[in-house]
């Protein structure tokens, strides 16, 4: 968490290999990634990292299910297997009945859930989410938070950049940033004890 311009999104982009650092090193899952080639970074993102963006970044011309299976097809999975996995994920995010819809026919919350399903497509080590609720209204934000909570409970690692205190409410660890540096690192659990639910808004 942190104020605008403190470097949260840059940190996330560095972690995902979307941007290269001007100084220093970036390590992810025991691999140094700042020296990797574009091709190696692409492979890394394909297999180990899932992204969720504030503005969804779905392919407008592809349906929901086609957007979700995009990463699996890129990873070389067979079309049939990729489709099965995409349908399972859409079902998990509650959008199985919207699988054939184009993004333009979905609400903001639904689009973000499609983006989350896409991020989970290749069973990544970590999902990096950049202000995932920034463009959503309260109802849609709750839908996404509920989903994140389910993922966390299921053991999925999520790194979420946010302004939203309600997201912080479901986090195990909160790192605060200011002026490009960490100013606070609170390990709230290690277990789920002590963490609240999104429904109360605050722990």
């Amino acid at each position, binding site marked *: 968490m942190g104020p605008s311009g403190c470097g949260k999104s840059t940190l996330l982009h560095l972690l995902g290999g979307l941007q290269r650092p001007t100084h220093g090193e970036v390590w992810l899952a025991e691999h140094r990634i700042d020296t990797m080639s574009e091709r190696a970074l*692409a*492979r890394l993102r394909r297999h180990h990292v899932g992204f969720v963006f504030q503005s969804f*970044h779905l392919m407008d011309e592809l349906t929901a299910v086609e957007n979700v299976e995009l990463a*699996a097809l890129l990873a*070389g999975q067979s079309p049939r297997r990729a489709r099965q996995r995409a349908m399972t994920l859409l079902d998990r995010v509650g959008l199985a009945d919207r699988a054939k819809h184009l993004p333009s026919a979905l609400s903001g919350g639904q689009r973000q859930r499609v983006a989350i399903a*896409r991020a989970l497509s*290749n069973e990544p080590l970590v999902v990096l989410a950049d202000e995932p609720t920034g463009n959503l209204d309260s109802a849609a934000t709750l839908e996404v938070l509920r989903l994140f909570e389910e993922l966390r409970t299921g053991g999925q690692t999520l790194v979420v950049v946010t302004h939203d205190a309600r997201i912080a409410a479901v986090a195990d660890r909160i790192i605060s940033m200011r002026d490009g540096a960490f100013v606070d690192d609170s390990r709230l659990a290690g277990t789920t004890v002590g963490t609240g639910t999104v429904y109360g808004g605050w722990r």
Partner: protein
Amino acid sequence: MTGRLLLVCRLMVRDLRRRRTETVLLLLAISAAAGTLTLGLALDNALARPYERTRAATAGPDVVATPVTTGPDALAALAPLPTAPGVTAHSGPYPMAYLMMTAHGRTVQTVVQGRDASPAALDRPVVTDGTWVRPGGVVIEPTFANALGVHTGDTVEVNGHPLRVVGTAVTAARAVYPRADWRFPGSILVQSSGLVWVDSSQIGTLADGQRLSYTLNLRFVDPHASTSFHNMLRDGIEYHSWTAIADSNGRLVRQAHRALLIGSWLLTALAVASVANIVAGRVVDQRRRVGLLKAVGAGPAMIAGVHLAEYLVLGLVAAVIGLTAGWLTAPALTNPGAGLLGATGVHPPALRTVITVTALALAIAAAATLAPVLRAAATDTVHALVDAATSPRRRRWRVWLSRRMPAALLIGVRINARRPRRARLVMVNTLVTMTALAALLMGLAQDRQVDLGETELANPKETRTLQAMLLVVVVLCVLALVNAIVSTWTAVLDARHPLAVARTLGATPVQASAGMAVAQLLPATLGVALGVPLGIGLYLTVSMGEIRYPPASWMLAVALAVLLAVAVLTALPALAATRRPVADVLRSARA
């Protein structure tokens, strides 16, 4: 692998379907260039093939011998030739008279040859309309008949003797109108004319006592004997080889062919600019798409593959359209009055043409798209996900100058500084258009008549060249117009935000629109200024003979018209865009 292939195909098909207008415009641009090149290459065949076909069909001679002398002296000079060593066949000697023919009130120089109905060993003209010669009738070479507007059944007067036109026929033994070589008896100097055939029994009467010339057709056992020379004068006999006649006929379409080939290169340049223009219009979207693909794990090769596949498919489809259109149009430029047998269009285009045109279409598609795709693939993903315009470099003199500029000019300069590549595309667009228009004006200024004694008739060479140039210019202008519309719309859409900011600072809608018009007019003026001398130079390079220049007022009027079109095309969408409230524009730009 199957999955990735499916993904490439899916993204390609969906993107093409989503951008139907852009797809159609891209196809139009590349097809125009491919079509013109097909036409140019088809005319390349037209230079040689029809003559060869005609020569085979009419048993054309290897060499035609015509003594300088006339009457019995000419017959005596020709007498030993049929039995000369190496001669395997001959026909003639046929009587010839250089007379005047009147048709539809026009009197023209005409080469009249006397023939009979019996089949000859060499030079058997093929009748293309009506019948062969008979007493009281005349058969006219088709190009000559076209120029005179004479048809089978009409009546003409040869040296004052009325004759009925009984047909038209083609031959390989003499060049077609206007190169049938009319001359005053006994002279070796030739003048423009056309060829007609009459019954040999009548030619003496028609000539009114004028001594007749004679011509003898020869075939040699050694083909080299006829190809080692073009024209030769030996022992008072002129010899014309079939290669000289083929060359004369080829000149009819050679200039048109050059005009088409050069036109196809101009169109190619314009098509590249057009494709680059359209691609530039969607580059922001494309870069986001690249960023998105990178974010989900696509490597540079995959990204390049996805984008190139789309444009290569477009290139292939455009090649097919261009080949078909060019192939179907070719006969219109080669057939009418060609005076030779066969048409280019009835045969499918040669493999060489197909390969060249396909390669050109693919090259256009690749050239215009490769750079943005590779740049986007190599860009940081985060930068690819956002649009970044070029930041103008800050210089003290620029700041000083900008403070003294009128608001519209300042806005125009700033817009061009922000998107310099787009300004260059506008310059190329107007440069190519103006070059072609200037060359066309040069073509229009030329004398398209040929002098046939008392009357001037249309010169088929000039007419055909102008036809070819008009075809190129029409296609070029359509393409340039499409380019201008695409370019101005994308520029207006792209400049919405800076124009809205300018309006918040006090610029009026008219100033903002004028600023957009200035942004397009600055590079367009440079293009027009360079295009005029380039077009004139291009025409001078291609054309032969005496050159006439069009009045300066023509050039000035066309240049101003081009600039006016650019200004209007820009100002209208810009004015429409300024009707939208500033706050809305700023809000939508931020989102």
